[in-house]
């Protein structure tokens, strides 16, 4: 595999669109104003299960400014697809409380909003079931788990191994539903011109939105253009089109004018995805020296009655530690709830909270230092597939982290370190995330003035994608970044995979490198003599990625936390957080550090605050705003640091990268919970670590 010559890759180039963002000039989806536009405000179901009997739109239509009120009774029919969540207004059924069941279109946003409140809906409500429990009678085994992993795995005889193990940890952990809450609420502006649709959308993947939306309206993908130059965060929730996009397009077609639609923060808690709550039982069998003999990890999760989304919660357990006997399972129950979806490190994030908490419990049971315990169980090869790891530097991360954190003198006794009113403790946990890569296309164009344009329908949701692609292109083109313009965020550009699965840089970077290499080759052939129109080369990485050698490719990391727990109040504050990661080559230390720290902070937030509370009586998430759903604020993040160990892995991609968007959140919550145990002697197995759980 050819590798990029490292000149600008590896340097701390400033974010290329930073100037637009600090001056307020960067345009996000809702900030597009096509002529003659109108506003759409969707209406949510007020029952969790049942049928819409009738909708009274008279009062709505009489309201000043109202142009249309659309629901099942008058909505145009969409072409059926395999994503039933997108079949908006195609049925009388209500599958969850808060589901979009109608939309009001008016001349102004406020008119649409007020009119939407006047919509009267008559329901035939049915009893709902919204409570996840491991012993739910409707638990079943899904065919596969997201995105395409086997549901269960088993090696050896774990049951017998657990029975005979000298040391046994058997504990059940739970993580609550959590909502992605990117700062920019989902929004779209939809405009039809005949049979051609333009969507200014807040999305993690313009190509994917185009390919999903077009068939619903019976038009070829080429008729749909999705424009998305700046996206205010996504964390998975903007991975595919949510119902709001379809509603905007449907409404725009219905009224014959461009339609603007923004999901409100409150609505986001029902209609834009979330992390499934999980219940996880982890059983670890070990010898007295801490060497694992058996690992069993069973997860119980929920999905909606509309669509199956099965989170891959126990998949990290398949690769983390050596043990001859092992089993992982996933069970799912379909409840009257919104469909869960991707949220930053789906699977790894909740799964590693359970596994890494259990490892801490095992360390205590065996009286072994938790760093040493992990090192002792380091596998030589992928413990389930048997494949070699392309590279694996968990041990280096643990050792480097322990050194930097000052772990060596740690007294393992819990509940004995006091500083004023605080009990102090430290904890460690491992992190991991798979290395994915998906086919993408790109073009590279040379202009006569010596400048270049690189085009790919990538998305920069705040990751720094535009910046690192500029660096990668500059190096491949043997020029400097200021000579390269990278155009992204538009489905009219060469098709690309979405910004998800920490695979953006790997997927898009490969396509950019190949397109730029082809251009350089062409330029060399012509000896630099360019035609007036410049010269363009393109690349499609489908074949290259299809031919890649089978290896176990994963990033690893270690997180160290120090917490203070107030003995009067149970308030837990994270005093120090250190993450050390082995994630291949780092293209831009400036944007990468921010990604790692941002992930760790979201992990801290998950550890201490985040919880979407299901209201059992009404069947919806109750705390649906940023005052009630707490995310970490500035004062919650004190001393936080992210480092990485150099990795030179030739089996990845031309850049040698592993992806860094998600690994930062993996393991953080366990490190914090383990530190809380060290501080107080109280083991919190159910997130978040709220003060009432520590109040005595």
């Amino acid at each position: 595999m050819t590798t990029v010559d490292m000149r600008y890759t590896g340097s701390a180039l400033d974010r290329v669109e930073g100037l637009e963002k600090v001056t307020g000039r960067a345009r996000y989806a809702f900030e597009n104003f096509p002529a003659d536009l109108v506003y759409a405000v969707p209406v949510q179901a007020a029952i969790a299960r049942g049928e819409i009997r009738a909708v009274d739109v008279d009062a709505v239509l009489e309201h000043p400014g109202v142009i249309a009120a659309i629901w099942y009774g008058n909505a145009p029919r969409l072409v059926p697809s395999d994503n039933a969540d997108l079949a908006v207004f195609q049925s009388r059924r209500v599958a969850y409380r808060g589901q979009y069941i109608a939309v009001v279109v008016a001349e102004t946003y406020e008119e649409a909003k007020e009119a939407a409140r006047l919509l009267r809906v008559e329901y035939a409500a049915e009893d709902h079931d919204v409570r996840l429990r491991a012993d739910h009678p409707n638990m079943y085994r899904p065919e596969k788990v997201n995105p395409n992993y086997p549901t269960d795995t088993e090696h050896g005889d774990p049951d017998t191994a657990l029975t005979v193990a000298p040391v046994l940890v058997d504990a059940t952990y739970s993580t609550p539903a959590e909502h992605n809450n990117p700062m920019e609420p989902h929004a779209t502006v939809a405009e039809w011109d005949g049979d051609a649709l333009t969507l200014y959308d807040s999305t993690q993947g313009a190509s994917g939105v185009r390919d999903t939306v077009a068939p619903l309206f019976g038009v070829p993908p080429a008729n749909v253009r999705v424009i998305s130059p700046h996206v205010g965060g996504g964390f998975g929730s903007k991975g595919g089109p949510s119902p709001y996009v379809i509603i905007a397009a449907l409404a725009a077609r219905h009224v014959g004018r461009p339609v603007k639609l923004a999901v409100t923060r409150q609505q986001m808690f029902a209609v834009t995805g979330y992390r499934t709550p999980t219940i996880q039982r982890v059983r670890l069998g070990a010898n007295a020296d801490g060497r694992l003999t058996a690992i069993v990890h069973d997860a119980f999760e929920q999905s909606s009655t509309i669509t199956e989304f099965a989170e891959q919660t126990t998949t990290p357990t398949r690769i983390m530690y050596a043990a001859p006997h092992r089993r992982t399972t996933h069970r799912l129950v379909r409840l009257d709830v919104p469909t869960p979806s991707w949220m930053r490190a789906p699977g790894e994030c909740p799964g590693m909270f359970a596994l890494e908490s259990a490892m801490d419990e095992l360390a205590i049971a065996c009286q072994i230092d938790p760093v040493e315990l992990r090192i002792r169980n380091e596998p030589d090869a992928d413990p389930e597939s048997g494949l070699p790891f392309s590279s694996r530097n968990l041990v280096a991360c643990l050792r480097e982290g322990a050194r930097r954190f000052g772990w060596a003198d740690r007294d393992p006794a819990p509940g004995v370190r006091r500083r004023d009113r605080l009990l102090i403790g430290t904890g460690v946990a491992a992190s991991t995330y798979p290395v994915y890569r998906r086919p993408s296309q790109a073009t590279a164009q040379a202009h006569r003035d010596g400048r270049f344009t690189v085009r790919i329908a990538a998305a920069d949701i705040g990751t720094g994608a535009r910046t690192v692609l500029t660096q990668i292109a500059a190096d491949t083109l043997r020029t400097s970044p200021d000579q390269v313009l990278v155009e992204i965020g538009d489905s009219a550009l060469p098709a690309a995979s979405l910004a998800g699965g920490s695979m953006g840089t790997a997927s898009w970077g490969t396509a950019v490198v190949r397109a730029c290499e082809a251009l350089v080759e062409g330029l060399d052939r012509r000896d630099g003599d360019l035609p007036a129109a410049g010269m363009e080369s393109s690349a499609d990485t489908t074949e290259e990625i299809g031919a890649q050698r089978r290896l176990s490719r994963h990033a690893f990391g270690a997180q160290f936390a120090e917490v203070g727990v107030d003995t009067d109040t149970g308030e837990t504050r994270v005093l120090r957080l250190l993450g050390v990661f082995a994630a291949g080559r780092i293209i831009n230390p400036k944007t990468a550090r921010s990604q790692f720290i941002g992930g760790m902070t979201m992990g801290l937030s998950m550890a201490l605050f985040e919880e979407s509370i299901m209201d059992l009586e009404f069947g919806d998430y109750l705390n649906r705003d940023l005052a009630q759903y707490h995310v970490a604020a500035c004062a919650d993040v004190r001393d936080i640091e992210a480092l990485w160990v150099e990795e030179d892995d030739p089996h990845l991609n031309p850049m040698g990268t592993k992806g860094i968007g998600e690994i930062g959140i993996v393991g953080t919550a366990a490190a914090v919970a383990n530190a809380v145990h060290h501080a107080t002697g109280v083991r919190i197995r159910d997130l978040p670590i709220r003060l009432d759980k520590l109040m005595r």
Partner: protein
Amino acid sequence: MRVTFTVNGSQQTVDDVWEGESLLYVLRERCGLPGSKNACEQGECGSCTVYLDGSPVCACLVAAGQAEGRTVRTVEGLSDTGLDPVQEAFLDAGAVQCGFCTPGLIVQAHDLLERVPDPEDAEIREALAGNLCRCTGYEKILDAVRLAAARRTAK
């Protein structure tokens, strides 16, 4: 109703404003100033922070009528010439990711440094308590404010 106010140094008259519209809505949808962001509409995230008569407020909670006759300054109007030092520091420190919280944070940090030229970390955290960021983990934002403070005092 008609609302007349001064925005970024120039007087603006906006007609047909409905009483229920917020200052944020008027700025974004009627004045062509979408720099201030709408992320919660409840004053819970600070993304819409603008100066109102010299004090930073959440524009989403200001009823349009409350702005009558007053002076508003948004991220678009922080500097007449090039970049304000706070904007520059956000760029240099790498404090920007998705950029959606950025305009509000910059206005809020700008106000802090106007009042407290050399703030302690605790003062920065308190001043920025109402500005949520989901990407950066705040660390680089703190760096940016420290950097802007250092540059201002050096001048």
